[in-house]
């Protein structure tokens, strides 16, 4: 049904409208069908005011005079991409540790506590040395996840007991909820933190006149975090990982992620059980010191504040920080794909499905915005192809990898088709591949592409209506590419035409760039 069908819909149903109103609506509708095309030229310009301090700290403000609250976010350009093998999830763990307070927030007797932390560090160093000695004495060291050599020596046991006893001593000196309780007390809401592959961020929404509290706490968190309760907090990672693994599809999706990427850690989840026990204070401190520096940080505010006011306040709390050496940036370059890959997953707890993943470029590449349009246009198109062929299926297209749908490094375009039975997986696979082949020559109808653009535009407005979601998008672009490319990205989506989508399909949806996953019941013949 097209726009003229809407008019028919209104005329046919009358909707009990007074004639005067019906006429207004119909005029409006006719105008609307014409303006739908004009709307493509809409500007996505954001009134962001920016300042970069001498130490490299970036400040981005959207001023909304009269608003009584302000959304505040602090982004650090680091995440799981900066971890090393064997320490996966350590960036996420660092985020947990950064809630544990500082010498001035969370301690009832810092001089005493400090001394205990120094003893813990010495004990941990000794424990690491002892563990390494025990491991290195073995010719074959833990070659598989379910096999562990006896790495325990009497000294290991003693050191672990010592650390546990010192942890208890620290607890007695701690003041719980060291940071969040003050945010709560002064009207802060939406207090969260997130660590993904490319960033760590802390969020708050608070009364605008109290924005200084955010700066006071975050500058302290960024420079003076104390790793309290390190070992108990590990168990929270275990709980979170168990929660992920309870999902029926998690293991399958992780296997698909691993199938697609060759070298990029964008495909690695936030830690495995066998990594959690390996984290050390020393390693976490290394990440903390390397990346939590002024010239790797962006502050974002949206609400009842001004740039001028924020510049002075930020200077007060962050101005003492010195510019430090630029930390290493992850490039995430993938080797050229050379062959189609295939995974067969047998499970009775997942619906049968066939999935196609194609590696696509990250944000910053000119083709990336058009993939968003392709997703919106292709999903109903493929749904209709399957439906016309009599296959009862549900098509979901996404760019999800682990938890995130956009990256500044290569990721994947995923076409997931859930069907009713194992036999239909083959039918659906064949139908989808035939259609993709066809669409690499014949464009998707322009009306469908126009609707896809409209859906994306509207979804963006929904995001922009929420200051927290908008601040996240600005910060996310800053860590993926640059906040300055957010508006051009949105504009590029809005100018995408059917011929652009044909070009994408032709270029990227080729066999050697494809990873196929097929889920069938246990025991099904495939």
């Amino acid at each position, binding site marked *: 049904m097209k726009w003229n069908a809407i008019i028919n819909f209104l005329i046919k*149903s009358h909707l009990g409208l007074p004639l005067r109103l019906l006429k207004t609506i119909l005029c409006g509708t006719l105008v609307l069908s014409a303006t739908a095309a004009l709307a493509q030229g809409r500007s996505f310009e954001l009134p962001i005011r920016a300042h970069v301090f001498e130490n490299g700290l970036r400040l981005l403000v959207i001023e909304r005079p009269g608003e009584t609250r302000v959304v505040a976010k602090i982004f650090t350009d680091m995440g799981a991409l900066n971890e090393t093998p064997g320490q996966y999830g350590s960036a996420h763990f660092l985020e947990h540790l950064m809630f544990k307070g500082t010498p001035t927030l969370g301690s009832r007797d810092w001089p005493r506590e400090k001394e205990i932390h120094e003893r813990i560090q010495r004990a941990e160093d000794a424990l690491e040395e002892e563990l390494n000695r025990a491991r290195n004495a073995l010719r074959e060291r833990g070659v598989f996840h379910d096999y562990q050599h006896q790495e325990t020596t009497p000294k290991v046991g003693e050191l672990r007991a010592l650390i546990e006893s010192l942890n208890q001593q620290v607890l007695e000196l701690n003041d719980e909820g060291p940071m969040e309780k003050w945010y709560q007390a002064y009207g802060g809401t939406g207090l969260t933190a997130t660590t993904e592959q490319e960033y760590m961020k802390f969020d708050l929404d608070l009364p605008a006149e109290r924005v*200084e509290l955010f700066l006071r706490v975050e500058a302290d968190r960024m420079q003076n975090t104390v790793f309290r309760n390190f070992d108990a907090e590990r168990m929270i990672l275990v709980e979170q990982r168990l929660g992920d693994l309870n999902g029926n599809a998690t293991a399958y999706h992780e296997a698909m992620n691993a199938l697609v990427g060759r070298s990029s850690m964008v495909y690695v989840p936030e830690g495995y059980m066998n990594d959690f026990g390996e984290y050390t204070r020393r390693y976490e401190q290394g990440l903390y010191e390397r990346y939590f520096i002024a010239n790797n940080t962006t502050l974002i505010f949206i609400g009842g504040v001004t740039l001028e006011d924020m510049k002075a306040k930020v200077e007060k709390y962050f101005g003492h920080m010195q510019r430090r050496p630029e930390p290493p940036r992850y490039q995430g370059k993938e080797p050229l794909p050379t062959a189609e890959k295939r995974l067969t997953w047998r499970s009775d707890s997942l619906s049968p499905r066939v999935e196609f993943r194609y590696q696509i470029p990250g944000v910053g590449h000119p083709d990336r915005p058009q993939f968003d349009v392709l997703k919106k246009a292709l999903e109903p198109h493929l749904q209709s192809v399957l439906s016309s062929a009599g296959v009862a299926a549900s098509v979901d297209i996404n760019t999800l990898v682990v938890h995130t749908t956009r990256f500044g490094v290569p990721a994947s375009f995923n076409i997931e088709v859930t069907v009713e039975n194992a036999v239909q997986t083959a039918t659906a696979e064949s139908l989808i591949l035939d259609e993709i082949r066809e669409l690499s020559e014949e464009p998707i109808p322009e009306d469908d592409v126009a609707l896809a653009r409209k859906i994306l535009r509207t979804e963006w407005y929904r995001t922009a209506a929420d200051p927290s979601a908008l601040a996240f998008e600005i910060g996310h672009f800053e860590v993926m590419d640059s906040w300055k490319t957010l508006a051009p990205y949105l504009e590029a989506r809005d100018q995408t035409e059917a011929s652009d989508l044909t070009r994408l399909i032709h270029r990227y949806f080729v066999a050697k760039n494809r990873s196929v996953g097929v889920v069938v019941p246990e025991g099904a013949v495939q």
Partner: protein
Amino acid sequence: MIVKYLLVLPALMFSSLAIAQDLTHPTKMDLPESGFSRPDPSDYQISLDNGLTAYIARADQVPLVTLSAFIRAGKVSDEKEGSAEVLLDALLYGGPEGQSPEGFKDVIRLMAADFSVEMHDEWTEISLNIPKEDLDIALPIFSALIRSPAVTDAALANASGKTEAEIGAVEALSLSSATFALADAVERFYEVLYADHPYGRRPTVEDFSNLTVDDVKDFHEKFFVPGNMTLAIAGDINEAEVRANVRDLFGDMRATRALPPRQMPTIEFEKAAQHTFPVKKLQSWLVIGHELPVVPLEDQAALDVMNYILAAEHLHARMLTNTRVLYGYTNDASGFLEDRWFGPGSYTFRSYSRPEVIRPLYEEMMSAIGSMQTEEVTAEELFIAKGALRDGTFPIRYLDGYSTARDFAIEWLRYGNHSRSASYTHRVGAVTAKDVSDMANKYMRTRSMQIVLVGEPANLLE
């Protein structure tokens, strides 16, 4: 040389003073009072002669508009069981009378609309978010849908089919992830709580076979009337035009008053009991709680403060400290006050953990609950909770035009006035430590807690 150093030294000292990190404690920062004051509902409200009340707000940050209707009728309002569920299906999928469901679906799709109908036990929310450019189309469709939804045999068959599927789903726990599993455990708790109560009654397939389209239309005609409904419209609008359109589209509805609520029996458990639902998963889920009687106005603020100190959702609170921060038993343990409009609600504490620590987790949760009844809260706890409620969770109910209009529309529908929201910050400010203790003893009954455990069986009451 010495002179040179003498000149440099003060400069260095001054410089180090100028660049020192400001680590003033938050309580010593002299943070100003919050500038928030609740918006005045009369700035948004229009009242039609037929009894309909609407709240209209301009919010032009983005070119979108949200239309919402709130009706004081839900799943337990129908006299003929199943009518509400069929009406819900008709509203969601059928569109206005005289049109095909496919046509309605296409209109929604072409507007890129976000359309939802949420039917609770006692009230219903219909919401349509659309681009500003489509408002002229959307408003009459929205009005027609509310006034004359297409109630058909197809809607009846759909609702019946869904009920059959839901009965199947209830028998087999879904548990597809930690989040869903906790929601499943909460559902099990409601089943226990409302086992013999009208709130727990759900239609059967047989109910639908005894139901006619006319029964559903009767239900709609009785409840979807001006005095029993409010509207909230907000976004990038011309307020005067929208007010006029609301009068045009809803003004000729027959005048009615709000309908009296259905009388609901109370619930009271006599003793604690455990209800175990074994499933083989990596974690176990725990819901502890009991009924919550209808809370009178004079208790509401103190009860909120008490719950915040005990178990504010995933924030610094006694329960999270006891379970997560100190021992790493769980990722979350929080409390939920869920009141109902006309009858008993629930007060629950929810958590989850690896099965081997479910017992200490339960014990720590109960210990936190007990501490509220036996130990007076500290001045700091009171300061944090009152500040959080007064300057945080309450103001964000009025964060933008739509949330303001929506909040007022629901408040008017439920109470017929705005006095509760007008006095809330004052009432929170007046709460004392003794009030908190009184609320803990009045609204938490540790001896009759119902414990729902979904996961590996463990006897928690022994």
